């Protein structure tokens, strides 16, 4: 079943065309990585899918519903969650509250001002479960802004996965991490995204080949190849555009 499909998606910022006619289908349960050189438009593509930016033309469907004109919160409510390349958490709230906020809408509490959070047992139990999962249970009373970088990245991921969304978009989840931190993070990503559909933008090719079962290569706003990791590695066009130098350099 196709969960997400992009049809002839274009995005211009003023005169500059950033995304130039992207077609992409993501099947339910797939782990899809988007790679490409700097400035290829990977993050922009994520912003279009998640509703932060809107397409100049083209169509994006999620679960069969057109979402290209919807604001982020409506797309989120349909079951799509995302993380950010630059850590994007609620800095003054503590770690527990960060995760609990991400669970409020999925738990049906919406904009309520007549429910007391302290009395929502299922909500609070689920929050603790997510904290255990991302390994931050012992830090739950710390203000999120005071966590170490790798912990903030784990929290960033936690906010994205807490809602139990079917589709998760991760924008460079291990950017800026040391090698050992990145390994732990990949472990975590694998565990928490089991049975989910995952799209990931990542620079580290080892991680991409480790996690993804399909890879799309985005170059100057166009997808030049979309295939299995093995086929992508062997694709001469990809090697020329991007991969060759990275692989030989690594």
């Amino acid at each position, binding site marked *: 079943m196709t969960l997400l499909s992009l049809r002839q998606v274009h995005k211009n910022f003023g005169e500059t065309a950033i995304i130039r006619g992207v077609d992409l289908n993501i099947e339910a349960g797939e782990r899809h990585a988007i790679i490409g050189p700097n400035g290829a438009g990977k993050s922009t593509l994520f912003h279009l899918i998640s509703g932060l930016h809107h397409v100049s033309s083209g169509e994006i469907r999620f679960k069969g519903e057109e979402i290209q004109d919807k604001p*982020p*919160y409506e797309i989120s409510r349909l079951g799509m969650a995302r993380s950010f390349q630059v850590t994007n958490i609620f800095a*003054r709230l503590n770690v527990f509250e960060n995760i609990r*906020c*991400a669970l409020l809408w999925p738990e049906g509490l919406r*904009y309520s001002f007549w429910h007391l959070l*302290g009395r929502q047992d299922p909500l609070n139990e689920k929050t603790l479960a997510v904290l255990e999962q991302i390994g931050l249970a012992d830090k739950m009373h710390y203000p999120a802004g005071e966590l170490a970088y790798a912990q903030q990245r784990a929290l960033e991921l936690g*906010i994205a996965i807490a809602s139990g969304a079917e589709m998760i978009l991760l924008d460079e989840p291990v950017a800026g991490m040391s090698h050992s931190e990145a390994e732990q993070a990949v472990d975590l990503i694998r565990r928490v995204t089991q049975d989910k559909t995952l799209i990931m933008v990542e620079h580290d090719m080892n991680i991409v080949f480790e996690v993804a079962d399909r890879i799309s290569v985005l170059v100057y706003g166009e997808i030049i190849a979309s295939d299995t990791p093995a086929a992508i590695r062997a694709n001469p066009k990809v090697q020329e555009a991007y991969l060759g130098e990275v692989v030989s350099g690594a």
Partner: protein
Amino acid sequence: MIQRVAIWLSYLGALLLLPLFFDSVLAISIFNQMAIAIVFALSYNMLLGQGGMLSFGHAVYFGLGGFLAVHALVMIEFETVYFSVVLIPLVGGLIGLLAAVFIGSFSTHKAGTVFAMISLGIGELIAASSLIFVGFFGGEAGVSGDRTYGPPFFGIEFLRDVEVYYLAAFWVFLATLFMYLFTQTPAGRMANAVRDNPERAEFIGYSARRVRYISFCAAGFFAGVAGGLFALNYEFITEENLNAATSGRVLLMAYIGGLGYFIGPIIGAVILTLMNSLLSNFTDLWMLYLGILFVLTVLFLPRGFAGFIMMHQVAWIRGKLTTLAIPYLLTGIPAGVFAAAVIAMVEMSHSESDAFNFLGLSLDPGGALSWLLMLVLASASLFATRSSLPQLRAAWEGANSLPGDETE
């Protein structure tokens, strides 16, 4: 949980017992002002502290609530409507809410500068209208009513200030409780989340605008309640109560008290009311001192008085709070002397009369001796204060550190 109930019970107890210990006319009138200020400042903090919305026009909701409340008093007097004046704060609240529902529908679109500028514009607009629509706002004289004409509430006719105080105390307690409970709801917590990061809030299912709007309406409601209390207490209201000066004063209260803490605005409301009503008896310059207090708070206590108190939590938990007493005195006494000397010079340069009495000293603005004395005193105490800072810093670090513990 038990601790929390204890705090609320002591709050209630303090509200109930205060007039028994201070029963002068002046004290009761100050308590009534405090009650009004507490509700108003707490409602302001729903915007700025909790929701990250810097408003320069919060007096609009206070004032509109107050004006309608006075009109309601008049209607009760002329028996156009029939209900107890006990409910007047609720009338004010509903009007505040109504105004916020309308104004918030476009002003909460963005936080930051856009929101601040709209709040300023609306504030000016309403203040200007109040001088134009004389029929409703009463022009510069304002409008007045009489709270004693309504049907008696269990025999109470609110002829005495203390009766008004207990009515106000009832509403203050209720309003404080509900504003606190609001912070514990999904809408209240998401207000904090949107304050911290509106972009991310949208990716967990919430429209930042809607979250702000809800807080804004709640803040408008409680500001209106405060306006209703004002109407009950003073029985008149003028344009001054919805203009920028009033909006500025509530900002000062919340800021000086501490925006980051629920209790902060209460502290700020108490401090400012005391300064307003007591200090103004001694000096015409009290506004100047208030301004200096504000600047000093911004510079040295960015988290307000509540933040200053909360800074001592670690030392308190570690049982080292008492080790700070002597160091505080060593710095506090010369700092106090410095402040007194500076104030003496300010008062001397302001004074038009010959000699006046200041803290037991006879000061003569025309005499060189008084000036010289104060100058020497100020320089010496400033020097002493500065020299005492290292010991204070050392004591502070000693009280907060635990060997082998680096996390806190």
